[in-house]
């Protein structure tokens, strides 16, 4: 009895708790008003008869919406599929023909013509070309241009005009594409036209001024905002502004200001640019200065918007919400500010800093349309080094390039191919082959045999496959993208180079951490020679260096592709004529891509006693160029690149325990310890 009572008591307690739990919650809900109006519908109703609702389309309606013949071309409107004939572009990719200029040409036009003609796309035959480029007449001359000879209704034509056209064109554009500086959004045809930046008159042809950003994060105390003013000036607003600095109505609230005379670059974190016509020039200025452009309801299409993701470098805001925009800028997380700032600099350097880059980018965009599925992925356009330097023909997968391993979460392949340039040597470099083949990371050895004598039939037995490629006599052939190269890393060697297995192993392990750079043993450094008024370089051992010799260096095989397919032919010819130049050229190329110095690893001094002095690494007969010619080469290269890309480094990467006072047995790379 008692147990029953006990049980009932517990049950009662339990039940009352349940009751409270179940009963009280709804009561609480009722007690707390959830809506201002009692009985008003809350949210979207859950209909009692949801199950009975019909689908939006009748069964079969989605599958059969009535067949319809292919659409005829709509007059006036063009798109890529309808108005461009890609069949002409088979094979050689994009081939561009430029109509020669008739009569006197302005400086800007001359620069454009020069940059197209110097590009890898140029062809001299209009019949062979798949794109015909027509420079829009200068707005200053009021002459009526005749319709060009190959016009054909404008098909496969690109009408290029670096200034927005205020006056109607003298002939019908027909099916031609228009590449125009800051076109208005209303007339711009996305995916067909190309939006160009509005370039100042004095924009350099090549190279161009580097970005102004010297540090990643904004300097403390730098102004938050600069506002574009007429005449290329900037009005720097203080940080304590109270309201809309661009709105005439609150002019008096501008706060402390300094007005810079003339067209100077703004020094602020954000640059406010009103969206109307005359302010477009400011856009490039802000980009160069590393000042994040804040565009207020732009009426013009942003340059190269087809491929450039502007949300990573600029902010397109609504001019009608000044306070919100200002608050958002002030409160923007540091991480985003950093990312935007850096992206402005990357974009400026990659696509805008010279006329040549602007023109190449335009042609690259059109080539991407022709390539279709094998075009540049967005990543290649929007991260360093940019699409002009990342050739989509190399590989469809970004992880094959040396630049995107972080973004892709990938790493370079763990082996290397040794590429031995035979030079005019008659004997196989046995010692070198043994040393290299001894490396656990070596996948294959390729010998570029370029002597007139036939290669010997007997090669040393090695653990890795050894292939002899019959090379041509040209020095630039050592950087040809041979299909036999099966690894990401290449160890470039001369026949008389001297290396130990330890050195090779360590250098390769270092390269894996820096796959986009060159990792080498012997170095040169460049300097500005005041006396001669030009660049010079020296092989003397100094406290810094800026080039590594390709007679013994690791680098990514992508640089072979870039060397062969992206460099102007003139520069490669130069290297063939003066063979020491080829090292300079390769270093220029890599430095202009990475904007970083190469990496030096330790190199035993005992090698150097047994080899010719480092300035003649080409071996007997090949690189005995007199010094002045070699010095001249660096200046010709600098002219060809439009700037000096080399960057100096003051460090060498050594093994962690290098020459430390600890037992040699503990050290992994023991033979590097030799004095």
């Amino acid at each position: 009895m008692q147990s029953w009572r006990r049980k009932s008591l517990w049950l009662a307690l339990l039940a009352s708790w349940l009751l409270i739990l179940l009963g009280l919650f709804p009561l609480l809900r009722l007690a707390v008003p959830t809506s201002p109006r009692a009985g008003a519908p809350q949210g979207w109703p859950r209909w009692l008869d949801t199950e009975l609702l019909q689908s939006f389309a009748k069964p079969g309606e989605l599958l059969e919406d009535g067949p319809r013949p292919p659409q005829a071309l709509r007059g006036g409107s063009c798109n890529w599929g309808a108005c461009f004939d890609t069949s002409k572009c088979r094979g050689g990719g994009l081939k561009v023909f430029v109509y020669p200029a008739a009569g006197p040409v302005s400086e800007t036009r001359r620069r454009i013509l020069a940059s197209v003609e110097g590009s890898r796309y140029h062809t001299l035959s209009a019949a062979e070309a798949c794109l015909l480029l027509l420079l829009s007449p200068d707005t200053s001359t009021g002459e009526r241009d005749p319709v060009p000879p190959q016009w054909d209704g404008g098909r496969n034509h690109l009408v290029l005009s670096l200034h927005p056209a205020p006056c109607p064109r003298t002939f019908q554009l027909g099916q031609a594409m228009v590449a125009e500086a800051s076109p208005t959004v209303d007339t711009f045809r996305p995916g067909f036209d190309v939006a160009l930046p509005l370039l100042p008159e004095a924009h350099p042809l090549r190279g161009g001024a580097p970005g102004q950003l010297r540090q990643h994060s904004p300097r403390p105390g730098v102004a938050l905002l600069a506002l574009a003013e007429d005449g290329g000036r900037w009005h720097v607003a203080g940080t304590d502004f109270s309201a809309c600095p661009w709105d005439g109505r609150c002019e008096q609230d501008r706060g402390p200001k300094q007005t810079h005379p003339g067209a100077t670059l703004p020094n602020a974190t954000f640059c406010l640019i009103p969206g109307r016509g005359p302010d477009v020039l400011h856009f490039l200025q802000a980009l160069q200065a590393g000042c994040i452009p804040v565009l207020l309801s732009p009426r013009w299409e942003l340059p190269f918007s087809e491929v450039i993701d502007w949300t990573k470098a600029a902010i397109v805001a609504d001019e009608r919400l000044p306070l919100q925009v200002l608050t958002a800028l002030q409160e923007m997380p540091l991480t985003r500010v950093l990312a935007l700032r850096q992206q402005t600099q990357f974009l400026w350097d990659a696509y805008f800093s010279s006329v040549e880059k602007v023109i190449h980018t335009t042609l690259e965009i059109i080539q991407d349309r022709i390539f279709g599925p094998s075009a540049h992925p967005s990543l290649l356009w929007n991260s360093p080094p940019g699409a002009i330097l990342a050739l989509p023909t190399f590989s469809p997968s970004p992880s094959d390039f040396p630049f995107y391993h972080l973004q892709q979460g990938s790493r370079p392949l763990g082996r290397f191919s040794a590429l031995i340039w035979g030079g005019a040597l008659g004997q196989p470099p046995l010692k070198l082959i043994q040393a290299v083949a001894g490396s656990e990371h070596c996948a294959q050895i390729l010998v570029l045999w370029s002597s007139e004598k036939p290669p010997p039939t007997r090669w040393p037995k090695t653990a890795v496959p050894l292939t002899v490629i019959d090379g041509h006599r040209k020095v630039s052939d050592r950087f040809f993208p041979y299909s036999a190269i099966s690894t990401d890393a290449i160890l470039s060697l001369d026949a008389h180079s001297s290396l130990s297995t330890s050195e090779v192993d360590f250098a390769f392990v270092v390269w894996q951490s820096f796959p986009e750079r060159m990792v080498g043993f012997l170095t040169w450094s460049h300097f500005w020679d005041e006396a001669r008024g030009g660049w010079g370089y020296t092989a003397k051992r100094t406290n810094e260096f800026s080039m590594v010799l390709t007679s013994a260096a690791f680098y990514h095989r992508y640089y072979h592709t870039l060397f062969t397919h992206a460099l102007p032919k003139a520069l490669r010819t130069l290297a063939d004529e003066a063979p020491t130049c080829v090292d300079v050229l390769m270093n220029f190329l890599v430095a202009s891509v990475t904007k970083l110095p190469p990496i030096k690893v330790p190199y035993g001094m005992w090698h150097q006693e047994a080899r010719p002095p480092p300035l003649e690494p080409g071996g007997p007969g090949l690189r005995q160029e007199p010094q002045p010619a070699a010095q001249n080469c660096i200046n010709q290269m600098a002219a060809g690149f439009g700037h000096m890309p080399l960057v100096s480094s003051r460090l060498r990467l050594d093994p962690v325990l290098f020459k430390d006072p600890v037992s040699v047995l503990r050290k992994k790379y023991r033979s590097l310890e030799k004095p």
Partner: protein
Amino acid sequence: MCASVKYNIRGPALIPRMKTKHRIYYITLFSIVLLGLIATGMFQFWPHSIESSSDWSVQKRSIRDVPVVRLPADSPVPERGDLSCRMHTCFDVYRCGFNPKNKIKVYIYSLKKYVDDAGVPVSSTISQEYNELLTAVADSDYYTEDIARACLFIPSIDLLNQNALRVKETAQALAQLSRWDRGTNHLLFNMLPGGPPDYNTALDVPRDRALLAGGGFSTWTYRQGYDVSIPVYSPLSAEVDLPEKGPGPRRYFLLSSQMALHPEYREELAALQARHGEAVLVLDKCTNLSEGIPAARKRCHKHQVFDYPQVLQEATFCVVLRGARLGQAVLSDVLRAGCIPVIIADSYILPFSEVLDWKRASVAVPEEKMSDVHSILQSIPQRQIEEMQRQARWFWEAYFQSIKAIALATLQIINDRIYPYAAISYEDWNDPPSVKWGSVSNPLFLPLIPPQSQGFTAIVLTYDRVESLFRVITEVSKVPSLSKLLVVWNNQNKNPPEDSLWPKIRVPLKVVRTAENKLSNRFFPYDEIETEAVLAIDDDIIMLTSDELQFGYEVWREFPDRLVGYPGRLHLWDHEMSKWKYESEWTNEVSMVLTGAAFYHKYFNYLYTYKMPGDIKNWVDAHMNCEDIAMNFLVANVTGKAVIKVTPRKKFKCPECTAIDGLSLDQTHMVERSECINKFASVFGTMPLKVVEHRADPVLYKDDFPEKLKSFPNIGSL
């Protein structure tokens, strides 16, 4: 354990106090409670057994009960769509001014049934999909009930299928909405635009300035940056269960599954099949199906019958041809099957093309080039094909799979236009989760060597070792590139020495007093730090020479996104214990540097203080240890790069203090440090540290070269 014991004691203690006469009372109480329980249960659960959703705030009504609105024949009709509309001309952003957290507020008009003068309904009241769409919006963060605060308005008039409505009368219904105002800030959803015979590519209902989320826009009707192109929802997404099939080689190279194709296209496809044989499969409607089998789920080639959409999983590429309309529901099915759509529809604006990178998931072939389609596709390498297959499936999962996904993506796009500074990035839209996981976006990605002139700020964390501190200050002040010295005084019980007692140095010296003795004070982003480079140095590190510190700064300039430090450490995997181990012996590898002496970018201070994942920061402060390991984890995780150890190893010892090395040798200390590594690895969900075998020395270090000509001769002296 304790709790259960307690209960056992309390039970018997209560019972003896009960009297028999109370029994009735208890029984009554029990009965009442029981009854109440049953009643509550009935009340609670009975109505909900009819409807599964038990949301209390939602009214339950029948569609048949919605109010009827009679539209007079002469009620106003909106203007036709304004083709020049852009966000900054036709959209009223002022209405979005109230919205907190950069999120637009969306109002949904309540459901009405519209009839004309004669009482004939204008359209069917609402379709299942539109109801789903409005439910999704109402359940999202965008929804507001307050019409006055809304920035975007969605009419409940169902416009998904133009064929299911009367154009003029629907327009009249739109025009009489309470906030219509020429359609400003109104968002209309439509999936099947146009009708026979013209099949316009945008909804024919006059809509003035209203935004249109339409399925099937062409370049001529789409207002770039204003309208939103959406997919045509495929009901098969919900009806059919189709398990995911990974990328890889498939039986057919190219497949066409559409039924109602124009004969011209069908001829082209037949020609393709004739040319390439087995690799190409062109399916059509089944003519001789027995009754009861839904025609939508079967496709035939000659007499062979295939299940649809399963057959799509057998093909690498699937043709999506234009029909009368540009937008085709088959696109959704194709993506779902992981088949790469081959879009043959000139001028079609692909769904969500404003944000989605369709090049990664599809191939567009101009209609004119249809006969070349095979060779175009053949040129795509296998690796890219697999990437595209994965991408196609991801697009379906994220943006096509349900009406809800379509609705939310549409609102997100509009939201991003209004709050561009809080917009979702390209990677967020396009990268599948697997890619997002593996990828690192270095916050200091720009290759840039900061100028030497900027110098660095030394931050010395100190508690009370004044003598040692003063020696460190004197030593560090000899470094040419030092621009400022910051002493973080972590002792609240003792005042820092008087100004006159501090060493006189050539750079500004600031003392910051902290509120609490915490290790994380060392990494606080003090306003006093003006340079990008920061040297964190303990108050007992007196053994580093000026050359070594200056060289360390030079190395940092070449690697501004890394930790550049002096003593290096390593983490190892202990196979016996199956966990990480901390190692401070002379090893050939390093993965960490101690922040007792390290250069780094000041941005990492910001990250350490405000963005450190999990409870690591508090954990470090509570244990008074491992702040350096935490910093190593943080930097490696965010940059994906290894540390740089500079200069040879030194004996970090000093006479009167427990230097880092002295302390590290302590066994318990090692155990604690190992614990830290394991703890942090679990918080980060991965082991971000990178192991390298190199350190940085001056170019001529230990070279046979005159010492006096070396820039940094005094390196490595003990």
